[in-house]
């Protein structure tokens, strides 16, 4: 995970402490949850969809605290869906979407996570930042791809339409 994320989160936290100690406590607890998951996931090759969804939702909570209504994320997927996907793949795809696209009051970023045809789909509205300081997001996508190659699972793909960027993650059983 980007070191930027930690520093930004600490800054958000500093503001929350004044606004609402309850919110601040909640934020810290979720932030440590995210980092615990990151550390744990280094030890394993696959994660259950349930674990990944839980992690992604926690991560989204942290992002929503910063961007509030400028960022919308819908999870249209059952928590208890059976199967596995590469660990941190949902978090990575959400992080990429936020990194490369405009998130502002005039142009909200909408992300959707849903289940379709035996795959977890992550789609986001496209509105690329003009000056993008971040390197290409291909490194992350390639890592996910390699993980699927190890498990000899086909069907991982990512593509653009006119208005969206979509990634399809096959569910490994």
């Amino acid at each position, binding site marked *: 995970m980007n070191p930027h994320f930690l520093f930004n989160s600490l800054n958000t936290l*500093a503001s929350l402490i004044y606004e609402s100690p309850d919110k601040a406590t909640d934020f810290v607890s979720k932030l440590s949850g995210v980092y615990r998951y990151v550390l744990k996931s280094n030890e394993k090759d696959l994660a259950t969809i349930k674990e990944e969804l839980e992690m992604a939702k926690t991560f989204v909570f942290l992002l929503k605290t910063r961007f509030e209504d400028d960022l919308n994320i819908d999870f249209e997927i059952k928590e208890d869906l059976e199967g596995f996907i590469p660990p941190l793949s949902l978090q990575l795809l959400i992080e990429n979407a936020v990194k490369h696209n405009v998130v502002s009051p005039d142009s909200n970023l909408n992300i959707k996570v849903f289940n379709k045809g035996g795959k977890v789909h992550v789609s986001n509205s496209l509105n690329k930042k003009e000056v993008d300081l971040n390197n290409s997001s291909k490194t992350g996508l390639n890592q996910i791809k390699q993980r699927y190659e190890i498990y000899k699972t086909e069907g991982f793909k990512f593509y653009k339409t006119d208005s969206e960027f979509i990634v399809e993650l096959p569910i490994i059983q």
Partner: protein
Amino acid sequence: MKVLIIEDEKPAARRIKSLLENTPGVSVVGVVESVKRGKEWFNTNPSPDLIFSDIQLGDGLSFEIFKELGIKTPIIFTTAYNEYALEAFKHNSIAYLLKPFVQEDINESIAKFKEFPNSSNINFNDLIAKIRGEHAKTYRNRFLVEKGDQMISLQSNEVSYIYSEDKATLLKDLAGNRFFVRGSLDEIGQELDPRAFFRINRSMLVHHQSIDKISNYFGGTLKLELIPSFDGDVSVSRRRVSEFKDWLNH
């Protein structure tokens, strides 16, 4: 003192606003959260006395606002983490604050600003390049050229200009010697430090040290006299004139 805040993160924007409002003599005249809204704000409001600005906003870099509108108001940049930006700020003595900050940090920076109220004259193109990490790029230092049956390694800062003539690429050094060099002007131009060399027209790259006189010429072009002198007219093509002036004004 009228202060504008540029910050895209909502809780952070509220926090810095309340810190500034608690600072005697300071009034917050606006909080802007994106590049787009920043441009709109400056187009519809009188200039503030001081700006506190985040670097990365949800729709781009705050530098884009200042660069495009030619904002001369002093700016204190705020950042949570950006090593390239910090390096660039330190290098160019640009004021910045590390987030999260406390009331004392604000007071100190306001006091400093009162003591040295010089308006900022920041080269945003340079800054953007630096924080994109382009500073890591190394430029071509030397040219291996032949003179008679000898070979000479010429340093880039000994070069006056490089030009193309009859499909060949030639280089003239400070002493007025002329050499053939390998590669096209396009290729060589990419390798050289853009602060030192400028492509003035289709057939010439010029080092700033070789420019002796500049005068207005017909059709909005500029005529140059170079040292050592060039055989023939040297002009800056019209569409490169404004960039050329910026380059000489670094």
